[in-house]
């Protein structure tokens, strides 16, 4: 954890930007977006200030769990090219400081979310931080190749928390929004693992590509994509869905299935021959996939609010 190589001078003092980087701002942007959608499409509307505070504290909670992840994973982050420049492995922020920020912000975000909205939302945020920092980062990530599957739940909670912040209870729509992200995470990360293999190999993280081989990973990507496909369609048929959500769900999942099928059909010789073009395209598409589904929910919400549908 703490004994990582520091590439900056010993007397380096972190800037405010280093602290911001500790909270994984790119992940936070996805959290803010999905939580906002969950909160807006809910049948109960909050006062604008309460809604803003809810999104803010959900985002801070996500940032806090990111800081805890960076504190604990500094040793493997230092080995992987993709993560070596993060604040803790690069030596810009002390590991102890990252831990203090993570714990402090976790407490503030949970208490403030509970006060701003309701206790259940606060509890779910606390559970999400615990799940990501302890269950995923400390336990599963280094012990099982199914780490991505179970860890994906942490990333899937924000829209559900947004919904609960507004309504105070869990319903089928919230669970389906959770399920979309939960089922989307494995194919998304395994596609990345297929073309970033040396990183995970070097760090000794038991990714499916390392433990069970690349053919098995390709099989898993197809299987999870098949299981994922009906979930957004079902979501589109609930009270939060609408024509835009349904069209996006059918079109993007057909495309996603086709991509997963192409990945499944390929072997390593073919993949290396074109420098993993299909895998890279699938990964890029998976990013738009999630934004498009939640964006479609927002469009349908706006159409309903405007009286168009």
């Amino acid at each position, binding site marked *: 954890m703490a004994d990582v190589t520091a590439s900056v001078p010993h*007397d*380096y*003092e*972190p*800037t*405010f*930007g280093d*602290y911001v980087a500790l909270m994984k701002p790119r992940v936070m942007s996805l959290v803010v977006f999905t939580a906002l959608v969950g909160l807006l499409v809910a049948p109960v509307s909050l*006062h604008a*200030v*309460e809604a*803003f*505070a809810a999104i*803010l504290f959900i985002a801070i909670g996500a940032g806090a769990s990111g800081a805890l992840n960076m504190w604990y994973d500094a040793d493997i982050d230092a080995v992987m090219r993709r993560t070596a420049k993060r604040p803790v492995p690069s030596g810009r922020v002390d590991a102890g400081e990252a831990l203090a920020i993570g714990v402090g912000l976790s407490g503030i975000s949970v208490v*403030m979310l509970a*006060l*701003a909205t309701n206790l259940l939302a606060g509890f779910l945020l606390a559970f999400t931080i615990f799940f990501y920092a302890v269950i995923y980062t400390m336990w599963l990530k280094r012990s099982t190749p199914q780490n991505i599957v179970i860890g994906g739940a942490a990333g899937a909670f924000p829209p559900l928390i947004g919904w609960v912040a507004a309504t105070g209870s869990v319903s089928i729509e919230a669970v389906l929004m959770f399920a979309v992200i939960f089922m989307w995470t494995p194919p998304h990360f395994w596609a990345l693992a297929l073309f970033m293999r040396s990183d995970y190999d070097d760090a000794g993280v038991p990714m499916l590509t390392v433990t069970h081989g690349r053919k098995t990973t390709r099989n898993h990507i197809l299987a999870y994509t098949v299981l994922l496909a009906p979930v957004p369609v079902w979501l589109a048929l609930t009270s939060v869905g609408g024509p835009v959500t349904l069209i996006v769900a059918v079109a993007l999942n057909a495309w996603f299935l086709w991509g997963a099928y192409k990945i499944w059909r390929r072997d390593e010789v073919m993949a290396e021959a074109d420098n993993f073009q299909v895998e890279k395209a699938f990964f890029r598409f998976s990013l738009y996939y999630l934004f498009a589904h939640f964006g479609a929910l927002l469009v349908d919400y706006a159409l309903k609010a405007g009286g168009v549908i």
Partner: protein
Amino acid sequence: MDLKATHELHQRRLSRNVGVALTLVFFVAVVFGLTVVKVTSGEAVQGFDHTVRPELLPVETN
């Protein structure tokens, strides 16, 4: 070493201090805003302030 010289370290420290200060001011503003919203959208709290004061409760018309 000239103690008055501004080292690059001081600039980093300043950026951090200003950032933390602005964050704290923003946090205070959020808590204040939330308090105003909660108090103004709530029930008639004054009528139950420590002792029940019926004269402060809204009058029922029927």
